[in-house]
């Protein structure tokens, strides 16, 4: 079953850009120009920079759309309109919010630890953006196919509680510190079932690479049911979804910013651009985590091929549709349920989800060892 230990590298976005340039017929001209001056590496750096810019712009646009979508859905559930004035159906509301936040005074509390206070929002934002690197948006639409992609994602997600704790501690505010401590307790207790359920999938695939995980889910059982891991591991999917929602800090597990108890949690003291960084990170994290759920359990970018359209485009469309379905579920859940208590949260995490995740792993290992699949 061990198929991951090969040196075959799957095509990534770098190769795709080179292929597109080749198709236009300008790649060799550009390469020759740079080679003539002995600076071939400059071309590589430029192509990587283009990828980075595309990812950052994509993240920003997604964040703006998601914040609009969330407000709109919340409003519809509560029999309201939501943002209506700026643009069609209030679609440009996030832009207005962003301009407002940019214009706000950047307040640093007098007793705050200035350096850490300034650094924390950037750590959060960068750690969320880094999750996008091994995320397969489509066939060969991946920044870098790391052979330890899933491990990398879990490791990068573990940076977030550190930066949240930094933010809460540096604010020198009791509400910030309470929110930060809660967030760290929550993130640590839910990363464990998250990792164990992910390992159960890895046992099936035999590789940590996200592209290999997606490739393993291609095809159909009995010609009808797609070979997604959600059908193989329904319990694992539910556990992973709950753990992801808890790790994102969304309702019903939004202890890091529970508005009724702590003012705004760990970013109580933040304003202006730094608050905007936290806001961006929150919604970028929502998209990234939904993308991970789709990649691991919902077949990633796989889907029926459509003739005459290149697979890069169709796979991207499938991926975005599935991701938005997961995001829709997270928002739907947020509109529906209230917050659980902090002791219930830890009870659920340690006493229920970790044993169930271990049971799920045992099941997966048994199935694979017995050679059923």
């Amino acid at each position: 079953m061990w198929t991951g230990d090969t040196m075959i590298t799957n095509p990534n976005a770098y190769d795709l850009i080179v292929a597109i340039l080749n198709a236009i017929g300008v790649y060799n001209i550009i390469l020759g120009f740079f080679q003539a001056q002995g600076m071939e590496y400059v071309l590589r750096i430029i192509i990587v920079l283009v990828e980075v810019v595309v990812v950052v712009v994509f993240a920003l646009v997604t964040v703006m759309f998601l914040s609009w979508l969330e407000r709109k859905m919340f409003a519809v559930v509560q029999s309201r309109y939501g943002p209506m004035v700026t643009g069609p159906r209030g679609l440009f509301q996030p832009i207005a919010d962003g301009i407002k936040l940019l214009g706000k005074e950047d307040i640093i509390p007098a007793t705050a630890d200035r350096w850490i206070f300034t650094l924390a929002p950037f750590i959060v934002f960068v750690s969320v953006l880094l999750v996008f690197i091994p995320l397969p948006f489509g066939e060969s639409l991946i920044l870098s196919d790391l052979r330890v992609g899933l491990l990398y994602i879990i490791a990068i997600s573990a940076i977030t509680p550190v930066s949240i704790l930094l933010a809460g501690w540096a604010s020198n505010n009791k509400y910030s510190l309470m929110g930060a401590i809660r967030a760290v307790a929550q993130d640590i207790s839910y990363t464990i079932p998250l990792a164990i359920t992910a390992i159960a999938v890895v046992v099936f695939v035999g590789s940590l690479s996200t592209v290999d995980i997606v490739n393993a889910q291609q095809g159909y059982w009995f010609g009808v049911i797609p070979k997604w891991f959600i059908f193989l591991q329904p319990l694992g999917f539910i556990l992973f979804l709950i753990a992801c929602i808890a790790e994102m800090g969304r309702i019903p597990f939004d202890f890091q910013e529970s508005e009724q108890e702590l003012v705004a949690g760990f970013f109580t003291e933040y304003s202006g651009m730094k608050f905007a960084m936290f806001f961006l990170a929150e919604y970028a994290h929502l998209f990234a985590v939904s993308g991970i759920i789709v990649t691991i359990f919902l077949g990633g970018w796989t889907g029926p091929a459509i003739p005459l359209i290149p697979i890069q485009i169709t796979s991207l469309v499938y991926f975005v549709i599935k991701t938005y379905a997961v995001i829709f579920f997270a928002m739907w859940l947020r509109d529906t349920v209230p917050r659980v208590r902090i002791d219930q949260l830890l009870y659920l995490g340690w006493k229920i989800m970790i044993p169930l995740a271990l049971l799920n792993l045992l099941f997966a290992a048994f199935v694979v060892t017995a050679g059923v699949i």
Partner: protein
Amino acid sequence: MAWISKNWTMIGIIKGLIVTMKHILKIGNRKTVTVQYPYERMKVAPRFRGRHAVDEDACIGCGICETTCPNSTIQIVKYGTRWFPEFNLGMCLFCGLCVDACPMNALKMTGEYELADYTRESLIYGPERILFKKEVSK
């Protein structure tokens, strides 16, 4: 064995999800209740107590409204050749006692409620702003 008594089927959450989904898909009578205020306004109730208005022909300037007002909002001032009440709406509590006390039924309260202003002086509504002429029906 406390975990046995927990509701593992999560029926409550699923019921709630169905209710919110009905809202999202607008199934049943789930109209949007928001009134988009600056663009559309709600109809004011007929007995709403807004800004005052004084019937120019009926008012005799007797000053009973002035003595009745609990907040000394009203002052009788000379306007042209006659005496009329002047309302300092910054002090008015819109109780309507002046309307009850008027012997000539000259005072009434309109449905106008957008009375916010920039200065305290502009909140003093003199006779030039509150007088109205009743249309005489013949």
